């Protein structure tokens, strides 16, 4: 880090110096969650595991159902929960991200279109899906989409988890749209003028000059949204999708619903999300640092 006399180091003058207020350091930004996760120590998973296994022993000390039994139940269910449950969470997040990114890129370019109506529509769609509760969007999609669609005579069924993919991709789309708009706006207008004065068309300017310059800048916030999306996939359990949380609940039911199972099972779910998202968060912050040095 660069040292600035009077700000990050001793001033070389004894005259009063007005120190700048570091706004960025004091205001929450859109990557707050990723920053927090990336800042957690490496032993956090072990801590989560220990707490979730020890907790029942403290909370239910009089119970006849022991930690050993709870741990053993979790151990038995673990492969199933991973294979059938968490894998689906990952799949949902990947597909929702894919769709959200493509649609969001299109919407973001729509927001900077020269056509007033395209611009307004893209802005409205972006604001609508960015500012609506995810769960509400999920329920609307679940109820609005038919169970099956008929395309050219063949019937395609729409399983619930695909509806969840569509539902989750909408808020992602809106946020990617904002990332694209913001990144394009971050390129100095002088770059537009320079290419205009060389007789580049608007399309050429955008694709050859502007987007290549801000592409890198979009990667960290894009990864940030992937982590947020992944952590939002348990919402799908409310739609009855057979993902990790739904299956954990069912597993506990078949283990006779001992309350001692709650912490180990949900703790395990938390652990899975953490282990999956932690490297993403670390990589996001590392990339952000790297890209912010070179413009």
């Amino acid at each position, binding site marked *: 880090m660069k040292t600035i006399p009077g700000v990050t180091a001793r001033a070389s003058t004894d005259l009063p110096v007005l120190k700048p207020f570091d706004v960025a350091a004091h205001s929450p930004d859109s990557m707050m969650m990723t920053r927090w996760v990336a800042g957690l120590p490496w032993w956090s998973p072990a801590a989560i595991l220990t707490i979730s296994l020890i907790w029942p022993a403290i909370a239910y000390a009089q119970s006849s159902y022991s930690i050993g039994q709870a741990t053993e139940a979790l151990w038995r269910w673990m492969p199933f929960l991973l294979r059938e449950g968490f894998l689906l969470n990952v799949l949902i997040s990947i597909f929702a991200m894919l769709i959200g990114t493509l649609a969001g890129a299109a919407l973001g370019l729509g927001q900077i279109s020269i056509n007033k109506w395209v611009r307004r529509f893209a802005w409205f769609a972006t604001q609508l899906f960015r500012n609506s509760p995810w769960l509400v969007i999920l329920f609307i999609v679940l109820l609005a989409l038919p169970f099956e669609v008929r395309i050219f005579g063949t019937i395609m069924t729409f399983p619930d988890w695909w509806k969840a993919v569509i539902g989750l991709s909408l808020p992602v789309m809106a946020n990617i749209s904002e990332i694209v708009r913001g990144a394009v706006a971050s390129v100095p207008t002088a770059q537009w003028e320079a290419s205009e004065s060389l007789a*580049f068309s608007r399309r*050429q300017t955008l694709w050859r000059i502007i987007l290549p310059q801000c592409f890198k800048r979009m990667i960290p916030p894009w990864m940030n949204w992937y982590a947020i999306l992944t952590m939002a996939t348990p919402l799908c359990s409310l739609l009855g999708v057979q993902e990790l949380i739904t299956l954990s609940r069912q597993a506990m039911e078949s283990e006779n619903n001992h309350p001692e199972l709650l912490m180990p099972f949900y703790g395990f779910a938390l652990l899975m999300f953490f282990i999956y998202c932690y490297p993403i968060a670390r990589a996001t912050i590392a990339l952000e640092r790297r890209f912010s040095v070179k413009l």
Partner: protein
Amino acid sequence: MTWTPDQPIISIKDVHKSFGDLEVLKGVSLDVMKGEVICIIGPSGSGKSTLIRCINGLNDVQGGSITVEGIEVHDPDLDKLALRKKVGMVFQQYNLFPHKTALENVMMAPLLVLKRDKAQVEEEARALIKKVRLEGKENSYPGELSGGQQQRTAIARSLAMNPDVMLFDEVTAALDPETVKEVLVTIKDLAAEGMTCILVTHEMGFAKEIADHIYFTDRGVIVEHGPPSTFFERASDPRTREFLSQIL
């Protein structure tokens, strides 16, 4: 109407331009003949940049007319790209494309806009880079070049489109005194070859040396103009005299 070289290559007549309520150009007229070099001088905020940005359609105007080779610039049906192929522009802040090397910066417009053959464009681009005395810097990125080198790359980039007119907007204002000269030499070479140039500049000595005609603008009007010999010796308007006394 077809344009012939005995008519002004650029003709500006009674141009008015406002940004909202702020009237920046209040009826500016000037003519430039082919091969002429004119300098526009004047205090900050007097509308010099605005005026030359109107010539290639980067700014629109509210009244009056600007023609380049007989083409009305502010005709709503005009193909702006066709106009901009004739008019090159160099900016104060160079505005090179930072993700492209010097050579790529120079080659981009002929390749993408004129859709010319790559081998030929590259040969010409290398010649242009040589002409602005930047051999050996072909593969450097703008971030690796000094201000003066970047500005000369920007000049080569504009020349690669083979324009009929070059606009320079205070192209040395962001440079250190030592590097100013290398850019001015490049522009002088160009002028000597007969390129029509319109320069906005604060380098009075250079203007005196290079210009065929000098225009002094203040608060959106041309106060006074004339060839350098008479302009600098016999400026009559008190505003011009005050400006010159401050700057010389």
